[in-house]
């Protein structure tokens, strides 16, 4: 294939600058020595990272977000793996139609899920509880887990299972020793994608969180609307680092283009 032209490379460079500019700026500002949002022109300083680690509210929110994302991703995986297997192993049209149903939270504006969850959790008096938030996030992240486990399950070569059965393996052994290891990269990737999606969510969570169950992005969002101290930049930088680490893991495990287009790993 021939080379990109010079014009194309200029376009590409500008495109990358546009995508990276706000992220680079956030990291740069987090290293400022001043007491306001500014570039670190007078010298680099980690004072806003120290301020962050000493800020009980942000530390608590971070820990809560991690627990919440862990619970939601794990629940979603536990519920969606059997669904993925059923869809990939059944001929029945109503089972196949379940795929669209289970993916449908993706099609709705997140704010609709947010207010619906608020309405429902208020009615059963569970707003702001850990259980309420985990259940609500599990619905939000389930489509991601389902897509990746479905891609893994449908890409499964039936011959491995047949071979194991013909060699005398029990059905249980086939599942644990053959099926599970083969779909594992898809499942782990689905779990990680679900984790980061839950961890990053603002639009649903802002409606159902209480002051004691406020997630990190929601606390950050509220802080940005009321003040401009550089701690918002250091929190953001930490979240960027987490996203970057997640991205590298997912790329190694699954391939980032397949991850977002929902196709199977090759």
């Amino acid at each position, binding site marked *: *294939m021939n*080379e990109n032209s010079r014009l*194309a490379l200029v*376009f590409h460079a500008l*495109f*990358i600058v546009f*995508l990276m*500019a*706000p992220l680079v*700026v*956030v990291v740069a*500002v987090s290293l400022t020595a001043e007491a306001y*949002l500014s570039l670190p022109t007078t010298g680099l300083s980690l004072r806003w990272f120290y301020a962050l680690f000493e800020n009980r509210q942000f530390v608590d929110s971070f820990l809560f977000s991690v627990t919440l994302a862990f619970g939601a991703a794990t629940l979603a995986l536990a519920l*969606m793996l*059997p669904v993925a297997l*059923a869809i*990939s*192993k*059944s*001929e*029945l049209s109503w*089972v196949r139609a379940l795929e669209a149903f289970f993916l449908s939270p993706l*099609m709705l504006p997140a*704010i*609709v*899920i947010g*207010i*619906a*969850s608020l*309405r*429902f959790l208020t009615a059963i008096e569970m707003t702001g509880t850990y259980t309420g938030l985990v*259940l609500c996030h*599990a*619905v939000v992240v389930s489509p991601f887990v389902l*897509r990746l486990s479905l*891609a893994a399950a*449908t890409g*499964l070569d039936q011959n491995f299972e047949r071979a194991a059965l013909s060699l005398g393996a029990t059905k249980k052994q086939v599942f644990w020793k053959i099926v599970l290891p083969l779909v594992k990269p898809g499942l782990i990737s689905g779990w990680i994608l679900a984790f*980061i999606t839950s961890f*990053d969510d*603002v*639009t649903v969570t802002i*409606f159902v969180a209480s002051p004691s169950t406020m997630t990190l992005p929601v606390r*950050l969002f509220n802080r*940005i609307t009321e003040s401009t101290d550089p701690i918002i*930049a250091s929190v*953001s930088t930490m979240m960027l680092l987490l*996203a970057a680490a*997640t*991205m*590298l893991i*997912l*790329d190694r495990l699954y391939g*980032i*283009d397949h991850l*977002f*287009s*929902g196709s*199977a790993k*090759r």
Partner: protein
Amino acid sequence: MLSPNSRAVATDAGLPRATQRNWNGARALAACSPALALYFVMFCIPLVLVFALSFRTFDVGTGQLQDGLTFARYLEVVSDPYFQEIFLRTVGISLVVAAISVALGTPEAYILNRMRAPWRSVFLLVVLGPLLVSVVVRTLGWTILIGNNGLLNQALLSLGIIEKPLTILFTNGAIVLGLVHICVPMVVVSVWTSLQKHDTATERAAISLGASPLTVFTKIVVPQIMPGILSGALVAFSIAASAFATPALLGGRAVKVVSTAVSDEFLGTLDWPLGAALAVLLLAVNMLIATLWNKAMRARFKEAFK
């Protein structure tokens, strides 16, 4: 943040279903029942409740819901110029965001696809990586850049290009800027997926017949990847029309879109029925546009969906 439309991409990019299909209905139902229970309780019931809520009235004095069902909240939204403006702004911003995202994302996907190792995978990570970063963080970057005392204004002032700071933050333009940043990687994904199935022989043929690179791109490549471009446009539109955090932070208190108006009703004035009616209308607009768009696409590109 994945697309409402990526399912279409998923089914045609997925591997052939080679699995033996031997599960009966009872077994499939048993496997799906825990998930169905979760969705029924946490998804179906809440949606029905919100839909019902939009037909109720709310007493400002007591803060209580009143008995009886009414269309009044919908009439209120449809007839009030304040809400009309908000809906028009939301649709307008989303159309502009979709157009710009396609105009930037399509050539970028093509350029990425033509890159050599290792640049191809490095830049693919750089372009798609931001999808894993919280929208709050991405939007904060823009508020720092385009604020009245922001870096852009400081730079332009010190270079003497402008005499007083430009007002960019808290305008429609700021919301468009922030949303393009969020939507454009999704367009790249969609076009990229199309490009993987695209046959480069036609490109080589065009070049050997003397076509310029630009002609090859516009006349040969773009028509072949049109389904990817159009589904990318729909994804960008849907994300933009439903976005909350970005318009909230970049539009401020003055420039409202539908989702920020919904949150005002639910978290501010506490008129939940009005907020529910706004949300139901937002959902309806989204679904209407997605259905019409998909229908038009399927009619135009029958082969691509087989």
